[in-house]
């Protein structure tokens, strides 16, 4: 509860944004994918981005990660321009099967981030065990990714990202390929992990309910080229709950508003 309170305080804080898009344009191969996007994400905020497929939401995320450089405008992190990916920004890819090292066990995959962070060998095992426990994978340290279910693999990828001790967590439709039950469980876990770590999150999804359920703020992008079409503040109480939150009148109102927006973009 204490962390939730701290979190609310952080969100309401009007300090400099942790990630700031300033008139960002990205053109790839003569095609403008994102045009003049301006956006600030406050420290500790949970921002969700939704939009029809092809609206550039994944591209926006990759810009925030530093994997792409904008062709126009600027992306800033903590007031500094982003020139390349940095370790305090972790990215959870949708295709967890491709983003894990198949030749390393669960422990080895988490270890990769610790190695990159320069943690001494002796300290790694304890930290790895702790991280695997945090994401609900205790006792699976010796398994290879190919021996794990999709949900477990995505948990493992989240563990590796947490090992980076990120200030910002970028998530690209992380639960898109999972079944509904697994997805709801992971949503709640991500919420509590984020609350505990105080990390800033940008979460891309095409699931509108998921966006409202998780976010402090939801942004809807318009396609061709990608730009902001709608921006909603989500003033639902935390901690959130799969049943009561989804039945909350505010939830239903926001849901209606977002659905109308998406429907309009598709015509």
């Amino acid at each position, binding site marked *: 509860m204490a962390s939730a309170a701290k979190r609310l305080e952080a969100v309401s804080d009007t300090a400099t944004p942790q990630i700031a898009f300033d008139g960002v344009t990205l053109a790839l191969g003569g095609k403008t994918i994102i045009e003049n996007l301006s956006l600030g994400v406050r420290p500790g905020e949970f921002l969700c981005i939704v939009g029809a497929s092809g609206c550039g939401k994944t591209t926006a995320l990759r810009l925030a990660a530093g994997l792409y450089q904008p062709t126009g405008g600027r992306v800033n992190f903590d007031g500094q321009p982003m020139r390349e990916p940095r370790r305090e920004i972790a*990215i959870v890819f949708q295709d967890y099967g491709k*983003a894990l*090292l198949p030749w390393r066990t669960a422990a080895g995959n988490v270890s*990769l981030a610790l190695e*990159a962070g320069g943690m001494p060998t002796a300290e790694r095992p304890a930290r790895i065990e702790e991280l695997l426990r945090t994401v609900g994978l205790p006792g699976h340290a010796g398994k*290879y990714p*190919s*021996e794990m279910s999709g949900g477990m693999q995505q948990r493992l990828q989240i563990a590796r990202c947490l090992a*980076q001790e990120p200030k910002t967590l970028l998530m690209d439709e992380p639960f898109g390929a999972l079944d509904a039950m697994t997805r709801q469980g992971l949503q709640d876990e991500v919420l509590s992990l984020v609350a505990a770590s105080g990390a800033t999150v940008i979460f891309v999804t095409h699931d509108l309910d998921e966006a409202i359920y998780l976010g402090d703020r939801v942004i809807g992008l318009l396609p061709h080229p990608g730009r902001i079409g709608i921006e909603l503040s989500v003033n639902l109480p935390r901690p959130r709950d799969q049943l009561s939150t989804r039945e909350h009148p505010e939830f239903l109102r926001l849901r209606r508003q977002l659905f109308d927006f998406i429907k309009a973009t598709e015509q």
Partner: protein
Amino acid sequence: MNRTALIWRVASFAVAAGFIALWQLIANLKLVSPVFLPGPDRAWAALMRGFSSGDLWSKLAGTLEHMAYGWLAASIAGIAIGAIIGSSRTMRTYVAPSLEFLRPLPVSAIIPVAIAMLGLTQAMALFVIAFGAIWPIMLATIHGFAAVEPRLYEVARSLQMSRLAVIFKIALPSASPDILAGMRLSLTVALILSVVCEILAGLDGLGHWVLLSARAFRSADLFAGVILLGVTGYVTSVAMSLAEHRLLAWQASQR
């Protein structure tokens, strides 16, 4: 191994023993001149004689040495060059097609050139063996490096891993199934070229031994040498399979 598999295995050995008995019969009845075809008894005796006198041991050691040095040199150079070419798009467009063009070249055709440069020497043999064995390894490494999942490179970038760390922690392990398959092919090539070089340059080894035995019409010794070469091919390939199996254990459940 379960019972039925064991029974089949025994039956299969029995069939092989039957063929050896047939070979003995043919030799005993002199259906083929004993000058060309010794019976298995004489071949076995020659093998034992060769081992007890130490002759065959030293020839075997010679062949293994040529093979191992050439193969190891080819592996190190092949992986290094393959990694350099495979990890750069520019190198792949400019260099890889030339390599693909050279691939179907019968590598033994390089032997006369090597002889002209280095003479009938040990160095010539090692050069030829390494040159022949490098192709499968190098091409497999290029392919393996080019086929690394791009997502993994992004993971490496977001972890700000050094170039060296990316090669050793991401690219090499990812390419390892291809590289090991190339190394296995090269092992066969190395054995064949060892034998050819020994025959041509008279270097100490089983190739030279079988040629001398043939020239002197000592067919039992000749067969002993050929059998030993077969065993060498078998043992090295089994050893390679075991190594592959261990190193690629992570692939087992993926297949």
